[in-house]
């Protein structure tokens, strides 16, 4: 059914259609509307047989989810930013124990400096925790990925994070197609756990494992991700059969045929990138893009196929690895091992910085002439950082950096 709805509310509807039995929730911006939405659906009786548990922290939220999932319940939670960091130990535990929990990340920056706006620092910090990570390009895809995520998680007994850009998607109203309960029931079989805590058939989950077996357990965690590489496209095609639209999969290609420059990005910025590509194509530029939907497992072969005939790759990413450069770009380079192709890293949209068509087009044009440095920060205020670097060099007690930059910005606005 077509409806005009907020992204968060739509995800709550999608989660409810998957009939979770336990939902643990702790609020944090910009994810709060999602768990509020699920809570409302439980309260008004539209989501039956579901226990909605208010907990005292994110650490508790995922710990309760782990317990519920181990007891055989289909389990869901959501978080963002510092909330994800606070539950970090449980994030690794959920994956290490092989529990098919589905968790939404409303992507938001990590402090300090404290910032409530969007970037990918939060989910990127947990990229190697053993969870499958899927990134939604639109709210329709966010909704669809949740339905796919439960099937994927349960088939592999591996937890799945569905990442959607905070505010840009979570708070955006747009036209969405909400599937029927009947179709979701047909797509998503009942949860058959591979392990379950059952008083009638007692065994333990969570053994201490020494050096003699730890490597083997970890090898199998990697193997699960490799299985997911096959399963994600399969689930995508079954989804298309049932719901009639393309959603999910490993990567989405846009105008990559004969493209000399290919842009790679995750999440909602791909919409803006496509608009820029359309504009540049009209002017005759050979440019295309690849949106990575599955970041873990990372589709090395599929990306290589998509990129290998280009002359250059530009990675637009909302995450920074200080001291290295780009997180996504490093992974893309791994996909291009053995292929001599420049990969430019453009760090963009940190802490909610607007990513405009104008700025992207400038960067893509510079890339087309190979005028880009290896690492660039989109729309960086060079004066501000230079000024601060010089000041810090001159003054021992130069004070807190965040406050200094803010003061400069305020002075710049009201000279």
């Amino acid at each position, binding site marked *: 059914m077509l409806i*005009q709805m907020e992204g968060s509310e739509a995800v709550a509807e999608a989660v409810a259609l998957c009939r979770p039995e336990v939902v643990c929730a702790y609020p944090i911006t910009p994810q709060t509307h999602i768990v509020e939405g699920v809570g409302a659906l439980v309260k008004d009786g539209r989501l039956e047989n579901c226990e909605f548990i208010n907990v005292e922290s994110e650490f508790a939220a995922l710990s309760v989810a782990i317990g519920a999932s181990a007891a055989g319940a289909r389990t869901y939670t959501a978080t963002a930013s510092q909330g994800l960091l606070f539950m970090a130990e449980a994030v690794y535990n959920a994956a290490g124990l092989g529990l098919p929990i589905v968790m939404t990340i409303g992507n938001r920056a990590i402090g300090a400096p404290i910032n409530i706006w969007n970037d990918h620092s939060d989910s990127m910090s947990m990229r190697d925790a053993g969870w499958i990570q899927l990134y939604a390009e*639109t709210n329709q895809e966010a909704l669809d990925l949740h339905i796919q995520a439960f099937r994927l998680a349960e088939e592999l007994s591996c937890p799945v994070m569905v990442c959607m850009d905070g505010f*840009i998607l979570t708070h955006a109203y*747009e*036209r969405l197609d909400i599937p029927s309960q009947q179709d979701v029931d047909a797509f998503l079989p009942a949860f058959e756990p591979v392990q379950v805590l059952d008083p009638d058939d007692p065994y333990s989950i969570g053994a201490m494992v020494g050096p003699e077996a730890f490597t083997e357990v970890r090898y199998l965690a990697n193997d699960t991700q490799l299985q997911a590489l096959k399963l994600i496209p399969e689930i995508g095609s079954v989804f298309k059969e049932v719901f009639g639209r393309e959603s999910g999969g490993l990567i989405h290609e846009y105008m990559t045929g004969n493209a000399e420059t290919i842009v790679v990005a995750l999440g909602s910025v791909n919409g803006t990138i496509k608009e820029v590509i359309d504009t540049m194509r009209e002017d005759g530029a050979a440019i295309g893009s690849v949106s990575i939907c599955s970041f873990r497992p990372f589709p090395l072969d599929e990306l290589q196929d998509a990129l290998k005939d280009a002359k250059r790759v530009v990675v637009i990413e909302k995450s920074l690895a200080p001291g290295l450069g780009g997180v996504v770009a490093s992974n893309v380079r791994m996909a291009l091992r053995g292929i001599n192709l420049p990969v430019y890293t453009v760090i963009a949209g940190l802490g909610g910085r607007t990513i405009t*068509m104008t700025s992207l087009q400038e960067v893509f044009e510079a890339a087309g002439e190979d005028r880009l440095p290896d690492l660039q920060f989109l729309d960086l205020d060079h004066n501000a950082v230079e000024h601060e670097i010089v000041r810090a060099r001159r003054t021992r007690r130069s004070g807190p950096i965040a406050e200094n930059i803010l003061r400069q910005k305020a002075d710049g606005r009201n000279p």
Partner: protein
Amino acid sequence: MAAFIEGKHAQAFPSFGSERMGAPVVSFCRIDDKEIRLREPIMAPDALIIQDTTLLHSIDVFQGLKEDGFIVINSARSFVDLGIADYVAKFPPHHVCHIGATELAMKHVNRAVPNAVLLGAFAAISGQLHMDAVAKAIAEKFPGSVGEANIAAAREAFDMAREA
């Protein structure tokens, strides 16, 4: 939602700073006949709805507005009293309108909630939306008496703006 009801694609998203009551906020809306992929904030709007005239003195709310754009301001005071008569004179006359939306909201809803009221005035001057679609959207978002009161206020604003 009103645009969606009329079969169009619409995208709306907020942008705000401090999470507190009374902080300045801005919200964007795009309406199109095809899917909207662009996610950047709107920097050159076709239409501007100003809900609080105190913002006129603190920031340049008109920044980027197109020359033949539309302006709806929540104020019963005239453009002269607001000190922007010269500025709005540059726009086609039927593209600008000031309306005491907060007063209309107090009258019909008994609360200072001018949003839905201003939407009625915007529908009237822009011709982008039909008042019936606006009413239907309000009713869907606020079922019951709250919605009905808001619809009554929006309809009055629609009529006032059309006559002005």
